[in-house]
């Protein structure tokens, strides 16, 4: 059974097509990153998975069931963090989380440890909390009952870098405890370390699905080189996106680096760097449609 299976998913509303035939499979036990710019369809997809929205066409299956048919029994197996989190300002974090635990019938025992871990004051009214602290309340309610599948829409928004790291550590622990995690972001660097696989969505369609290593391999490495004199002819053969500026040259090399290194060894090189391209660059490729 797949954790999430989307097949030709289409969603129209207000005369616009938010999802335009999304196909996607998320395996049980993986951390799956869902990356795209704002408006690409990430939140729409999440909302279909928890049955806030109904598909216009195509099917969505969550833990083997369609969200609407699965109803409360299916949602009991999910955790959900909305992309635009709004919480009852009048309640304290403790009251709200206790209520959520009552509704779900489990998870109450994890409220205090999780709050301590994220340094969250449970006894202040939510209206008095900062955006980051509200986000912590949202995270705690999404994972405290150890769901089979956690759907986290932009989970790290509003968290400072230290808390982002703590949160990603939590995601790994939940995964190790058996939770499948489907999380979205428009900031790629934060998913790079935690996601087993990544899908890139733009304009309602999936552009690329791959694991992080595969994306890296496809992305290649960026070469920056400075020669003793003018760049000799053929020095940059076989590289993409080549730029030459006097004695300096740069480009993208795909494949094993040995032939490139051998070639450079025979040339008068003053300075050289060869580094992995980061996910931001890969995604830029995908957005341009050449990945």
């Amino acid at each position, binding site marked *: 059974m797949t954790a999430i299976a989307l097949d030709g998913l289409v969603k129209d*509303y207000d005369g616009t097509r938010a999802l335009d035939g999304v196909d996607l499979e998320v395996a049980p036990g993986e951390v799956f990153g869902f990356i795209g710019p704002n408006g690409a369809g990430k939140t729409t997809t999440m*909302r279909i998975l928890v049955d*806030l929205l109904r598909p216009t066409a195509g099917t969505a299956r969550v833990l083997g069931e369609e969200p609407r048919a699965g*109803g409360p*029994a299916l949602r*009991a197996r999910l955790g959900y963090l909305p992309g635009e*989190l709004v919480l009852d300002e*009048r*309640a304290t974090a403790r*009251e709200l989380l206790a209520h959520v635990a009552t509704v779900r019938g489990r998870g109450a025992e994890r409220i205090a440890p999780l709050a301590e871990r994220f340094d969250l004051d449970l006894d202040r009214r939510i209206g008095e909390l900062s955006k980051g602290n509200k986000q912590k309340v949202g995270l705690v309610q999404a994972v405290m009952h150890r769901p089979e599948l956690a759907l986290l829409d932009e989970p790290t928004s509003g968290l400072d870098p230290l808390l982002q790291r703590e949160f990603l550590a939590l995601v790994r622990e939940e995964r190790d405890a058996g939770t499948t995690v489907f999380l979205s972001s428009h900031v790629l660097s934060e998913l790079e370390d935690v996601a087993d696989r990544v899908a890139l969505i733009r304009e309602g369609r999936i552009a690329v699905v791959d694991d992080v290593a595969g994306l890296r391999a496809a992305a290649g490495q960026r070469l920056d080189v400075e020669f003793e004199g003018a760049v000799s002819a053929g020095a940059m053969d076989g590289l993409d996106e080549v730029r030459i500026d006097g004695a300096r040259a740069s480009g993208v090399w795909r494949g094993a680096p040995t032939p490139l290194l051998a070639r450079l060894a025979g040339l008068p090189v003053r300075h050289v760097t060869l580094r992995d391209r980061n996910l931001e660059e890969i995604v830029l490729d995908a957005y341009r449609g050449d990945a």
Partner: protein
Amino acid sequence: MSAALREARWQIRRARRGLVGWAVALAAVAGVYIPFYPAIGGDQLQGMVDALPPELSQALGYDRIGSAAGFVTSTVYGLLGMALLLVLAVGTGARTVAGEEESGLLELSVAAPVRRTALVDGRALALVLRTAMLVLVLFAASAALVRVSDMDVAVGGLAAGSLQLWLFTTAVGLVALAVGAATGRRVVGVAVGAGLAVGGYVADAIAGLVPDAAWLADVSPYAWFLGGDPLVAGVDPGGVLRLVALGAVAWLTGRTLIGRRDLGV
């Protein structure tokens, strides 16, 4: 405990501070009118009303102001107390589903393992209980003041008026809730709820003035509430039945329609 009861308890708990304020306001309404009846009431007040054009006094509901029970009806139960309760019921009804959907607050509740129907049921029940508590406060304050002022108003009549006031304001609030649940728009819920209350009031006034339009009283929720003059004549079974039916139809409509649409878009 069922999901709907749990939801109702949570809604009432969330609103507990506001509820105290409303209770004070309603007790105050009884307090600013009823004690003055012995000083200005009876023949003196009747004389003032007699000086008004009869159509005006009838439309305002002042034609019965000369008796003690009529005075309490015209000022507290049929006017300011009713208006306050309508504001609460319509405001709460429209906000509890549509308003929270618009603000995004409903998103987590709907994603929880609870049916949408149970969310509507629980919120409707919370509305019914809140208006009940507030009407009880108004009843208790009125009964005490009437007794202290030694006025000729039967407790049974006050109880009948309170019951019908509760059913009237709650039914209108449930209409606002249902329209909000069906459309997802708070302002539409408020408009329809308020329109129903005001329209019913106007229809009842016209029915009293124009013999050919007497049928308007049959379709006016305000007339179902006060047409039988419950503070004097006791419970009006026909009115009670219609008010209960209105509330029930609204509730059933809301819980059905919310299941059929996208939420929060």
